[in-house]
């Protein structure tokens, strides 16, 4: 996969994840490849069901329940971590590779105080003693700007609001200073003002710690403002990958255009770029997976899977007829 | 219909333990039915000259301390035990179940019905707080020691279980939309219950029934063991165990062990059947079982195909 010349921090290659279905397995991720450079924020945009959470968790080797990693590699620090035995992988997770999960109150342990859960990360991965871990947890809670951190240390997850719980989960992801953070839909379900706070918090902390981030979201507008590069995921495939300005100003894939039009705040842009979507959602083998919804589809789109082509330097699109902006 | 039965049979048998359960119960039932034909000796006549004989070719299970042939008695015994247990359990399910359904249905609303439901539930609480065994003995003692009273004792002891089961079934189904829909369609309360509650409750109730029959056998045997159930010389596993009890301590194990083992195996068989019904009744678990069946079919087909191709090549 042709990318920038510097060595990527983490490279996902041809990842295939399937789930058991009624008759045959359903491929939720179809040969997904991407790379993240050190210190960069790569955005991943997709609608519900596109496979975002599956991708996020499969990169760490833990696909969602009943999912199976059928093929592919995740190269990190020189080795394919998917080949590692589970205990080795656990040493990496949380310490070098961490994840910020959505819906945090459901994911935190209901019978442990949040302070203990944050401290546990430090104790497990950094080997510090209990007192030191507690201090680190308290410091982390301040870093994520939780009001009254000392009291919150002894709170249980159900006593926290959504925004506070999200900050706790961020604290847990960052306390061990990971090289790579996956933020899976970390701001959905939060109030808009809280969203903005969390976003700036994440960005600032990542920059402070020098971590790279895979920022997964449903909102292409946020991705375009927050990330260095953005990838668009549809039906388990990366449809487009481009630097931020490129994507925002010269989107190539029809699906990206649809996303941008739907989220655009300017009615003129919406009208200009609105493309009527046609057809029902069907899962098709062979051909472009967006073909049945694409208003620009031609007969050849149903026959051959379009290659992931570099249409401009650093700008890739999986489309037979990418939109030109000349 | 036949296809459904076939599928049911395949599902039930795909796990060896389920198959074992059905086999055990079927075998014991056959033995009980055919006992008069198979038994080499009369179950109540004693040959006082040959008491406490170890197992031999003449007496397959040996003889007990008054000279009765243990094998004959042991295969006659399930007639009593099974009958009592099935009757008692069936009665408890009917009694408890119908009361429970009514309680569930009238647990909200107005008037005296709600009050009665509440009182009935509290009565069930009190009943279940009783030490079961003492309660059963007291019932049998107060009503007179006979087969019928043992049946009644089993019925009473188990009724609260079905009461709660049916009540919770009714409550959970009541709140579901399609029941509301049928009521809108003009069905009466009673018809609603019949049409919706019963099919849904079938699974858990059947599983519970199977396990309860096993318990019923144990309770009958236990009552007879202490002399408060079926009277001697009627062959019954519990009383046989009691008769041979002292002999075990002195080393003659066969008067107690044979009936005891048969008792344990039979009850275990009912337990296995109950477990199999539990799995079959739960759609999620049934799906898993179905997957196993399919995988097995695929593996078998692959094997046959491989064999065929090897034969050709």
């Amino acid at each position, binding site marked *: 996969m042709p990318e920038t010349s510097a060595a990527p921090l983490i490279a996902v290659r041809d990842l295939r994840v399937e789930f058991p279905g009624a008759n045959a397995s359903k491929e939720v991720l179809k040969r997904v490849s991407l790379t993240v450079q050190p210190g960069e924020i790569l955005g991943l945009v997709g609608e519900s069901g596109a496979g975002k959470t599956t991708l996020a968790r499969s990169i760490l080797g*833990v696909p969602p*329940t009943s999912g199976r990693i059928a093929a592919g590699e995740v190269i990190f620090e020189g080795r394919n971590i998917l080949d590692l035995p*589970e205990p080795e992988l*656990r*040493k990496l*997770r*949380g310490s070098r590779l*961490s*994840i910020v*999960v959505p819906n945090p109150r459901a*994911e935190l*342990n*209901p*019978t*442990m105080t949040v302070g203990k859960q944050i401290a*546990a*990360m430090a104790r*497990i*991965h950094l080997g510090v003693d209990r007192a030191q871990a507690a201090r680190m947890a308290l410091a982390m809670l301040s870093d994520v700007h939780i009001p009254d951190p000392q009291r919150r240390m002894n709170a249980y997850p159900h006593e926290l609001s959504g925004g506070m719980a999200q900050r706790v989960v961020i604290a847990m992801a960052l306390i061990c200073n990971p090289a790579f953070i996956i933020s899976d839909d970390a701001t959905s379900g939060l109030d808009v003002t809280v969203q903005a706070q969390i976003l700036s918090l994440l960005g600032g902390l990542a920059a402070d710690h020098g971590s790279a981030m895979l920022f997964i979201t449903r909102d292409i507008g946020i991705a375009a403002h927050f990330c260095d590069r953005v990838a668009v995921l549809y039906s388990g495939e990366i449809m487009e990958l481009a630097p931020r300005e490129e994507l925002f100003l010269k989107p190539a894939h029809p699906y990206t255009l649809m996303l941008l039009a739907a989220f655009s705040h300017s009615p003129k842009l919406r009208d200009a770029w609105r493309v009527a979507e046609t057809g029902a959602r069907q899962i098709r083998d062979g051909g472009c997976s967006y073909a049945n919804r694409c208003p620009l589809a031609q007969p050849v789109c149903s026959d051959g899977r379009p290659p992931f082509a570099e249409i401009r330097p650093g700008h890739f699109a999986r489309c037979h007829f990418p939109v030109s902006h000349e | 219909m036949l296809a459904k039965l076939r599928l049911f049979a395949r599902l039930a048998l795909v796990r060896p*333990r389920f198959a074992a359960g059905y086999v055990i119960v079927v075998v014991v039932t056959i033995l009980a039915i055919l006992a008069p034909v198979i038994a080499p000796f009369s179950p109540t006549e004693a040959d006082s000259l040959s008491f406490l004989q170890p197992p031999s070719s003449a007496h397959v299970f040996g003889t007990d301390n008054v000279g009765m042939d243990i094998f004959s008695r042991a295969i006659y015994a399930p007639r009593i035990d099974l009958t009592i247990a099935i009757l008692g359990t069936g009665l408890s399910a009917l009694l408890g179940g119908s009361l429970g359904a009514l309680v569930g249905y009238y647990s909200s609303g107005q008037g005296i019905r709600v009050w009665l439901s509440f009182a009935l539930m*509290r*009565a069930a*609480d*009190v009943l279940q*707080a*009783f*030490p*079961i*065994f*003492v309660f059963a*003995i*007291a019932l049998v*003692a*107060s009503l*007179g020691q006979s087969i019928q009273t043992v049946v009644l004792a089993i019925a009473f002891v188990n009724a609260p279980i079905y009461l709660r089961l049916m009540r919770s079934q009714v409550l959970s189904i009541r709140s579901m939309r399609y029941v509301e829909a049928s009521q809108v369609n003009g069905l009466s309360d009673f018809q609603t219950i019949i049409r919706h509650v019963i099919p849904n409750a079938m699974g858990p109730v059947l599983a519970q029934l199977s*396990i309860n029959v*096993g*318990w019923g056998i*144990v309770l009958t*045997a*236990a009552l007879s*063991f*202490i*002399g*408060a159930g079926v009277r001697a010389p009627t062959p019954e596993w519990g009383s046989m*165990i009691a008769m041979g*009890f002292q002999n*075990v*301590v002195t080393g003659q*194990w066969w008067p*107690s*062990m044979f009936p*005891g083992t048969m*008792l*344990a195996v039979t*009850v*275990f068989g*009912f*337990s*296995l059947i109950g477990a199999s019904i539990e799995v079959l009744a739960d759609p999620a678990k049934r799906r898993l079982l179905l997957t196993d069946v399919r995988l097995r079919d695929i593996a078998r087909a692959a094997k046959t195909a491989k064999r065929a191709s090897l034969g050709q090549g």
Partner: protein
Amino acid sequence: MRVLTYLAHRLLFVIPQLFGIILVSFLLVKSVPGDPAVLMLGPTATPAAIASLRKVLGLDQPLYVQFFIYVKNLLHGNLGTSWQTTRPVLDDLIQRFPATLELVTLSLLVAIVVGVTLGLYAATRPNGWIARFADLYGLSVGALPDFWFALVLIFVFYTMLGWAPAPLGRLDMIIIPPPSVTGALTIDTLLAGDLQAFGSGLSHLALPVLTLGLLNAGPILKMTQSTMEKMLESDFSRYEVLCGVPERLVTRHALRNALPSIVTIISVLYGFLIGGAVLVEIVFSWGGAGQYAVQGVLNSDIYPVLGFVLFSAIFSLIVYIVVDLIYVLLDPRISN
């Protein structure tokens, strides 16, 4: 403070429950045939003697008056007298109940150790042979008759191997029992410093405890296994895996969350076993309270039965209240 109000609340509910239990037991036991006066005086008694004894016992009064008198006596701590032992039932029970309690408590401990351990193993290694064995073991719940299993153990360990003592009570015949402090032999012998008696008591406890413990581990095993499976598949367990928490810790945290359900089944079992140990008591001539009650029923001696029912009901209720308090400690979501 909140704990006290909660306790007061619960106790309020306990009283009508207890009343109901006493009432039903009374009616039940009163319907057992057999005239206690006749049984006490024997077959040679004259009708006049029987009549006067009946008057003394209050048996000539209508039923509700008898019940009223019984309850009034209860409130004064008088549980009636057993005509078999000719002693107050309260004294008899105080002597026998600890024997049952000791047996049941130790058996429950065995059941917990076996059930929780196997259940944990089965939940964390669902494809291993332990899981398969645990499934079968769980199926023996309530299935295997305890008096038969006790007999098997006696045959194997006493008759054949000679390892266990004869099933004749709690102590060897030649040993003098220690002064009774708690009624539990294991404690009393240690308190008296009598190690020989302690050893004898333990060896006599071995088989009955093994019987009850192994047979009742089933429900605990099943509950542990199913609850742990649910916990290990829950969101928070998966999140811990995503955070790189090692397997042992994940299991421990899941167990912590599974405790309420496991504690529930243990408490239910505890209450059940007080009356459910009767058959084992009989087989081993234990001299426990359950055996006492059964003898009461079989001999139309009603006060022991009523007293036993009362004792075991109160015991169950205490256990349930203690368990509810434990819940409040275990689950931080409840206290709000």
